[in-house]
């Protein structure tokens, strides 16, 4: 391909495009245990896990056009399955983590089967109802979930094998788990990216834009929606499993409906029209949260205000805003 034939402005775009941004971000994040403080590493890990959670929601929200108000249920099921297996039964992480994904997938399949039969607001209501059921079970089933006491002190996975990896042997268990989380999330995001860009993902977008027409050309709309629902739930379950270990415990608060709203705000803050929007939103929200809570206790007020600005002034989110500015700037230069 000869780029020399293209106009200068377009070529600049291509140069920016040829930089493997995802790899750069991954490598920068991988240096965190060595260059950043323990507190910054803590924030980075929170961002990485929230990024996966938000991207999984966006598979429903942005790609398929399903407004799930109970996505936290799947995050919670993943966290509890992994936490219970590891703490109560002493199952190693290498088995508990896939089991958390599997358990969440089964639950998403059952609940999703009922949810996708409903349209629009009723879909949102039923997802909310399921998440409240999960919450009520987690909050009350003392013998298994620890009830309102939760499951504190989930053990870290056994990462002694990292002793034998040059460069990693000096790291503490917290930093080792951070690296493991980063790799697992990166693989998950790569899979989700493939899913969204695949013919299957294109079909989901078609269903979002016009479900009647999709059904008319012979697509089984509900089956596609259910598949998206299960995939989104499974990856939310993975995020939850990592989060339970990261935060050293699983508590019923993780499944509160306000958490569903929070991850939705992350997704929209970043921009639900873009695959990399939700991770940007997760980073922005986690960073803002810690910056603002050090000044004032009124974080919800700030969050509500951010949400108002987003809804009325910046519906495309941060990434949408940047892309808009970029195209405007390029258009002006080209003219």
């Amino acid at each position, binding site marked *: 391909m000869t780029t020399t034939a293209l106009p200068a402005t377009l070529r600049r775009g291509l140069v920016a495009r040829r930089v493997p941004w995802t790899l750069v971000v991954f490598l920068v994040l991988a240096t965190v245990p060595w260059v950043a403080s323990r507190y910054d590493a803590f924030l980075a890990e929170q961002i990485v896990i929230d990024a996966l959670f938000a991207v999984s929601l966006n598979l429903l*929200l942005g790609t398929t056009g399903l*407004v799930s*108000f109970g996505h936290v249920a799947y995050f919670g099921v993943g966290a509890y399955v992994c936490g219970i297996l590891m703490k109560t039964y002493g199952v190693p992480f290498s088995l508990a983590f896939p089991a958390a994904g599997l358990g969440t997938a089964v639950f998403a399949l059952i609940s999703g089967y*009922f949810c996708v*039969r*409903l*349209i*629009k*607001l*009723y879909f*949102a*209501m*039923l997802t*909310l*109802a*399921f998440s*409240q*059921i999960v919450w*009520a*079970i987690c*909050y*009350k089933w003392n013998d298994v979930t620890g009830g309102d006491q939760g499951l504190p002190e989930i053990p870290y996975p056994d990462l002694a094998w990292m002793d034998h990896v040059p460069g990693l042997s000096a790291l503490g268990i917290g930093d080792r788990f951070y690296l493991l989380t980063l790799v697992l999330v990166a693989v998950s995001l790569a899979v989700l990216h493939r899913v969204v860009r695949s013919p299957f993902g294109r079909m989901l977008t078609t269903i979002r834009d016009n479900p009647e027409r999709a059904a008319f050309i012979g697509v089984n709309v509900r089956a596609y929606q259910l598949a998206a629902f299960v995939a989104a739930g499974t990856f939310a379950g993975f995020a939850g499993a990592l989060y339970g270990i990261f935060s050293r415990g699983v508590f019923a608060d993780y499944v509160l*409906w*306000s958490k569903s*709203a929070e991850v*939705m*705000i992350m997704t*929209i803050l970043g921009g639900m029209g873009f695959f990399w929007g939700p991770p940007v939103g997760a980073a922005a929200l986690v960073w803002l949260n810690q910056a603002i809570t050090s000044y004032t206790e*009124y974080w*919800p*007020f700030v*969050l*509500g*205000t951010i*949400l*108002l600005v987003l*809804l*009325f002034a910046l*519906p495309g989110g941060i990434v949408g805003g940047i892309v808009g500015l970029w195209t405007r700037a390029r258009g002006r230069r080209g003219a």
Partner: protein
Amino acid sequence: MAPSFLFSQFMGGLTTAMFLFLIASGLSLVFGVMRVINFAHGSFYMLGAYLAWQGVQWLHPTGAGFWAATLFAAAGVGVLGAVVERLFFRSLYGREELYQLLFTYALVLILGDAAKFLWGTGQLSVSTPPALAGSVQIFGTTQPIYSLFIIAIGPAIAFAGWLVLNRTGVGRMVRAAQMDREMLDALGANVGTLYTGMFVFSAFLAGLSGALVTPIQSIVPGMDVLIIVQAFIVVVIGGMGSFWGTFWGSVIYGEVLSFGILIFPGFSLFSVFALMAVILIVRPWGLFGRPL
């Protein structure tokens, strides 16, 4: 189980039910006409409670000014509803429901913190108005007069609402808007004003119920979120937008909660959520609602 015990359990459920009906009817009304789930309805209720407390402090700290304070609280929340609808909500009609849901959620966050800022995080309480203090004996059980008052006010509001909806011009407009708002608009009715009016009335009802709860519950931050979840279950069971559905939904919710505690202690919460999920699966538009 002794009949008097069952009766007192039943009355407890009924008090919860009629009280929830006051709150949920406003939520259901806004959904029926505007097709919006207003999460901020619980915040309006909470502000009603705080404003009533404030009114009682200003008017008569001994509690005699309760009724004036109640009216003040309901009117104050109604005015807030008007501001919210005219300034913000108006521009969200016709946009995706996601944006409308998130807007009302933003209000929940902002109003919750505003209440904390203005009234602190401690518990506040209002004493029962003297005329309704005390209790009476019914079937060998002790019933607080204030609970009986709440139980009476529920059907009174229901009857008034039925009269307005079925016997007045405004009610006809509201029913028409529920069925086909484009057609109503095309026929020359002022749908914009009708929407503002509905929203304000719904906020007024929320403020009123918030004020009326103050003698039996202490006012605390977080009461907004607690109540919206319950009101939401009630309208889902009865049917979003259905007036009688909300009434019966409240009764079912109150009694399931009240007797559920006897049958599976600790799992009554679970039973109401499960009931809600089953109804959404079998009849998404609720027991008394109509499909959209």
